[in-house]
């Protein structure tokens, strides 16, 4: 674009530039992306994978998005809400980031959602809290990973219709993510004629699942929704206790990043996830290769989630010509992103900024000596509302420890 300037206009514009922050013409000013992640404490494992995902993405792009260099600013929330708030303030007020990736945990996100909305900062989070894109939406929120129940609803469908299970016991950590996962499973499973006999909630940090394992009998299968490193511990103790029931799991329960740590006890577990490392798409192969090359491990949800966030930001900013000055335009463009190829396959967003994409049902197997996930069915275009009508869904209370109630 050629712009002709006469002297007066030039003087006027440079005078304006001297007193005002630099306007949009400064295309070489870096795009600033803030990453809220957890690098210390019990959640650090996932937090570090998040950082790996976004680092790999920026490396793939030579640190440039939409023609502008990218500056990544990382804040360690320490995995607690007050720390997340402080780091969000640091990123927004001091560093003036254009958008935020993260945070990881629901309570971290809930602590800052009002704050980031007040500062109109787009936030692309992995935290799965249902109400963030349902009953308490944030207009600047985008979630390419999905809600807690978004994987569990198809899993329940698969369990009832394909596996023909009639009754299950669920077991998951005693916190909101566990409740929401199992609530979603229960609603769909019971809707398809199944019966959830019991829901067990061991504490988040427990050394021993024995008292819970003793209660697992008399049903067709066990559904586990553990997160972090708990799936490893649970599956080990499950096998040691001699429980023979088939195991179904959610996204974090069968996370591909855990494959290197699982043993034979996990073989046969069926899990539903928005990301599967065996997806045969060019983008995913490229991503897995990059992760194996740079970090020596098969990527899971967290790394993939952040790589995908990078793709979303890129697609939106390219549409805007790299202009990030109008935050409302940025969030609009982010939510309008629709990709046909990504590590998680094709996806787009609903009007709450939550992803509509494929959910993969996988079986954990040993192939040529290595544990791998093999996709056995995929549910394309899965929304957070599953097949329910949105209005009806939102009128119901959010999934919780006691909702939906157990049928006796």
């Amino acid at each position, binding site marked *: 674009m050629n712009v002709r300037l006469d002297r007066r206009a030039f003087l006027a514009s440079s005078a304006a530039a001297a007193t005002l922050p630099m306007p949009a013409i400064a295309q070489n000013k870096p795009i600033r992306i803030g990453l809220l992640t957890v690098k210390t404490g019990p959640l650090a494992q996932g937090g570090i994978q998040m950082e790996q995902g976004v680092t790999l993405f920026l490396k793939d792009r030579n640190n440039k998005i939409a023609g502008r260099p990218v500056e990544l600013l990382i804040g360690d929330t320490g995995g607690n*809400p007050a720390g997340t708030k*402080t780091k969000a303030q640091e990123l927004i*007020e001091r560093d003036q980031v254009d958008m935020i990736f993260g945070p990881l945990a629901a309570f971290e996100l809930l*602590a800052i959602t009002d704050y980031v909305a007040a500062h109109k900062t787009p936030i692309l989070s992995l935290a799965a809290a249902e109400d963030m894109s349902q009953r308490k939406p944030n207009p600047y929120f985008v979630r390419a990973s999905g809600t807690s129940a978004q994987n569990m609803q198809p899993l329940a469908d698969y369990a009832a219709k394909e596996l023909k299970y009639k009754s299950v016991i669920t077991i998951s950590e005693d916190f909101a993510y566990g409740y929401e996962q199992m609530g979603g499973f229960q609603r769909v499973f019971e809707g398809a004629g199944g019966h959830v006999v019991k829901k067990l909630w061991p504490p988040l940090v427990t050394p021993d699942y024995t008292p819970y394992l003793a209660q697992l009998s008399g049903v067709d299968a066990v559904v586990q929704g553990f997160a972090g490193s708990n799936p490893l511990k649970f599956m080990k103790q499950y096998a040691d206790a001699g429980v023979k029931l088939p195991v179904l799991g959610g996204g974090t329960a069968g996370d591909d990043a855990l494959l290197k740590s699982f043993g034979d006890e996990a073989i046969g577990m069926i899990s539903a996830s928005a990301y599967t490392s065996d997806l045969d798409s060019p983008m995913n192969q490229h991503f897995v290769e990059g992760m194996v090359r740079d970090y020596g491990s098969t990527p899971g949800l967290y790394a993939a989630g952040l790589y995908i966030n990078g793709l979303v930001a890129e697609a939106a900013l390219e549409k805007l010509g790299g202009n990030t000055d109008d935050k409302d335009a940025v969030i609009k463009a982010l939510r309008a992103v629709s990709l046909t190829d990504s590590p998680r396959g094709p996806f787009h967003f609903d009007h709450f900024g939550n992803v509509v994409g494929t959910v993969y049902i996988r079986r954990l197997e040993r192939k040529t000596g290595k544990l791998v996930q093999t996709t056995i069915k995929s549910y394309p275009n899965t929304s957070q509302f599953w097949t329910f009508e949105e209005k009806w869904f939102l009128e119901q209370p959010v999934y*919780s*420890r006691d909702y939906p109630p157990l049928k006796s």
Partner: protein
Amino acid sequence: MNRAALAIALLLLATLPFWIGNSFYVNVATQMLIYAIFALGLNVLVGYAGLVTLGHAALFGVAAYAGATLINSGHGHIIVAIGACLATLAVAAIFAVLALRGTGLGFVMITVALGQIAWGIAYRWISLTNGDNGVSINARPAPFGLSLESAPALYWATLVVFLVAVVAMAIFVASPFGASLRGARDQPRRMTALGYNVWLIRFLAFLFSGFWSGVAGLLYLYYNQFVSPQTVALSASAEALLMVIAGGTGTLLGPIAGAILVIVMKDIASAYIERWNFVLGAIFVLIVVFMPEGLVPGVVRLCRRVIAARRPRAPMPVLGEESGE
């Protein structure tokens, strides 16, 4: 000289939002003040009463939860403030009655247990506390029509409360009650023999300490507009205790210095040092090794030694005795 220093310090504090630059740092300063109030309150028990507690985050959290519940049910700022303080005092009274059955280790363990009960309630009484998703408030209240929404406004409001807290502490320490509390700490038997009710003295000190913890908790709520079970967790109690011990127990400035140290590490240094809690741990170890009495008394002692070394003929003063235990 002291007065001039005090005046300069006050002036600097009052004008901080103008010279510190970015509103992020104003917010950090607000957090320092909030935690300084919390640590000052805790110091009443730890320093002056000699009762180490690991359950004070519960009192801090009760005020925050009570405040959030009252705000969300539509009450005005006065009712919120009074209600939060009353709730804190009530819980502090229950804590005190139970915990003061023992001293020393017994007292510490009971406060740990009580703190864990508070955490359990915050985590599991979902209808009241919303579990681990926490409670948020939509807006900060506007006391007497003054909006606290901007960072400087909340800073100044917190500064006023902080100064009141410091003055209250200074009066408290100098008062006969403060003297009797220190007496109960050092010589409980002798105090009993003199006719003092040592239990009652400690009980009142617990309430006073709990009250300021609650005030800090309410400010924390106003600042974060969010409270969740992590606020009342054991680690939060331990962090506050570390502030007091690192800064110097039983001193007025110690807890303030400790709060500043921890917040600087947590909020500012953490942006530059990935292993910031390792560094913080190392600092604590250094403090314990070189200044076991705490940062403030330790620095005072070192300064006196330096001054004394520069004037070899002056008679040696008694070194740093008045603040140590």
